[in-house]
């Protein structure tokens, strides 16, 4: 280590090496405490870098360590501050020394998110403004029921008013049709590939061994079949209660038709309900579910529920052909910044995010809730879902997935 001005003798050198190794170890631990995934091999390489002549040039060493020890954008952005604080004793804002969530609040992506929100235009030309003297919960109550009752046909009846078993059956049917439309959508690449189906010679030869190698039976290369997967996150909070029952039926229909579908309920916390949903007997499934949905009715913590989802469930249930469908009115009692952050993470993982909002279909509703505003930039389709016809209107979109 060439860290000292004078030429040290052998013993001094060893002492210096031990000291540096100790400091390096402590630095790696600091990084781990801050959520960096730093393993043994990185430690060895870091030591190699130091002894390759980087040790006495802090600027270079920082840059080298940054490439070696950070692995994603969020770490890349925080690295310099951590390095300076540890090695150069620079005072950095205490925030960047704290792991994870708080430090990320400073990241430029979130800043741009906030900026974007500031000028967020109203989607879907929702008309007028929400009456200012009503709380959001009240908006779900009386005034709007009038609007729905003017409509006669079943398919345009607000779900809250569906009581008759026939109508419920119709809703179920619509859900099943929707599910069929979404089940297997070929990507453009798949379609192209199917046109020019190639021979699988390896298999062809194997198949024709009994014919003495003369290729009589041809085997074509099979397309890897990867069906679209649907993950439904259903808001079961108080403000959604008029809709919960019908949406539970809708989801049951969807799960029935989809081979690959998962469902979650959330209110103040997240519950995994696929198993309960896959019960063949609809009535029993709904029974089990309404038990799970109990305790709902309080506030909605969409951000925290999504965090739980991203942390514990997403790696398992999401692959590259996953559409995540969130059914919620977006009234969030949690931190909107958290919701935005988790939505951003979710949108990176899956192919599409569809947000169905029953309230969107009401006249005079605008997405004023802070929660929904934070989430909207990451939503690919934001659509109303308060009647059968609004659900049916989703079909063409989902067919393009």
């Amino acid at each position, binding site marked *: 280590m060439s860290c000292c001005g004078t030429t040290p003798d052998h013993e001094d050198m060893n002492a210096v090496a031990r000291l540096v190794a100790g400091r390096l170890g402590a630095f790696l631990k600091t990084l781990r405490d801050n959520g960096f995934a730093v393993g043994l091999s990185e430690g060895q390489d870091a030591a190699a870098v130091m002894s390759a002549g980087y040790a006495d040039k802090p600027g270079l060493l920082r840059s080298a360590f940054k490439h070696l020890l950070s692995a994603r954008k969020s770490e890349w952005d925080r690295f310099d501050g951590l390095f300076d604080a540890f090695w150069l004793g620079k005072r950095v804002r205490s925030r960047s020394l704290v792991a994870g969530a708080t430090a990320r609040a400073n990241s430029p992506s979130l800043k741009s998110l906030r900026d974007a929100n500031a000028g967020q235009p109203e989607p879907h030309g929702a008309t007028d403004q929400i009456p200012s003297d009503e709380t959001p919960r009240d908006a779900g109550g009386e005034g709007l029921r009038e609007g729905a009752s003017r409509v006669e046909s079943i398919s345009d009846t607000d779900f809250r008013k569906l009581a008759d078993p026939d109508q419920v059956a119709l809703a179920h049917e619509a859900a099943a049709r929707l599910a069929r439309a979404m089940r297997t959508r070929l990507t453009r690449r798949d379609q192209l590939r199917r046109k020019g189906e190639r021979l699988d010679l*390896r298999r062809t030869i194997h198949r024709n061994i009994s014919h003495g190698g003369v290729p009589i039976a041809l085997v074509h290369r099979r397309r890897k079949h990867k069906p679209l997967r649907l993950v439904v996150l259903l808001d079961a909070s108080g403000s959604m209660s008029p809709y919960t029952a019908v949406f539970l039926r809708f989801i049951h229909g969807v799960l029935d038709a989809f081979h690959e579908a998962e469902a979650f309920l959330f209110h103040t916390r997240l519950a995994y309900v696929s198993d309960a949903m896959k019960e063949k007997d609809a009535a029993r499934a709904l029974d089990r579910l309404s038990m799970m949905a109990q305790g709902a009715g309080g506030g909605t913590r969409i951000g925290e529920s999504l965090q739980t989802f991203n942390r514990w469930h997403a790696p398992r249930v999401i*692959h590259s052909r996953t559409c995540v469908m969130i059914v919620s009115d977006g009234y969030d009692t949690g931190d909107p910044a958290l919701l935005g952050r988790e939505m951003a993470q979710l949108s990176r993982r899956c192919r599409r995010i569809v947000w169905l909002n029953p309230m969107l279909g009401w006249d005079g509703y605008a997405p004023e809730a802070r929660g929904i505003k934070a989430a909207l930039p990451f939503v690919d389709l934001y659509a109303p879902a308060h009647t059968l016809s609004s659900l049916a209107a989703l079909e063409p979109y989902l067919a393009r997935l």
Partner: protein
Amino acid sequence: MKARDDIAQSLSACGYIADGELATAITLMQLLRRPLLLEGEAGVGKTEVAKALACVHGTELIRLQCYEGLDQSSALYEWNYQRQLLAIEAHRGQPDTIEDQIFSEKYLLERPLLAAIRRATPPVLLIDEIDRADDEFEAFLLELLSDFQVSIPELGTIKAISIPHVVLTSNGTRELSDALRRRCLYHYVDYPDVDREARIILARIDGASAQLALQIARLIDSLRKEELRKVPGVAETLDWAAALVGLDVRDLKDQPEMVHDTLMCLLKTHEDRARITREVTARLLGKVA
């Protein structure tokens, strides 16, 4: 550090204007023999890094473009079955040594990954848009990148003759696995700052004056701060600069009409085009001076 300055210089000789950090990353690639993972928005010049690296080392660039459904037979190797069948036909009735023959080098089709480890001089292997490939392929790649050897059942294990310089790029459409990230050096490629972008224009576009390059870079910089759906990348900048030079524009402020009309080189969606009105262009031009 000499090696690092050398690399920065050779990169610029190859037409790639790198910042100091990228030069460090490339030095480290050689020191630690690790692949380099480049992440960043589309159009910031990630793929260019690999091309420049091949130019610096004076070696071949082998590119593997990833897509959903990419499998081993199109990435690693495949047997040339047609020729094998022909050989079998040709040798019909002769002593049965044919089996050894048809599973030999002669009938092996190299795909990019196998090609990359069998070159005498280490090539640059560009694995482009790794985030588009499936998880399974990513896992397979992990094994190859750590051992640099491949086993082909009929031939046995093929060890790398030379370890290629591996560059992976990702746009972040899918979260990559921690295992892959941990094996790589990480570099986040950002849009260049005004100064660097001006130098890129000068290096790439013949006939651009320093003043024009700086004006273009400044305008692009403020354009990127507007709310756009598709932020123009470096490739778009170069297109636009080439267009302006071709149209004989010497000074942006003299020809605001021309500037506005050529913005189609930069704005690639209808919405963005509608958002940047003549007034906005005029405002942006005001900042250029």
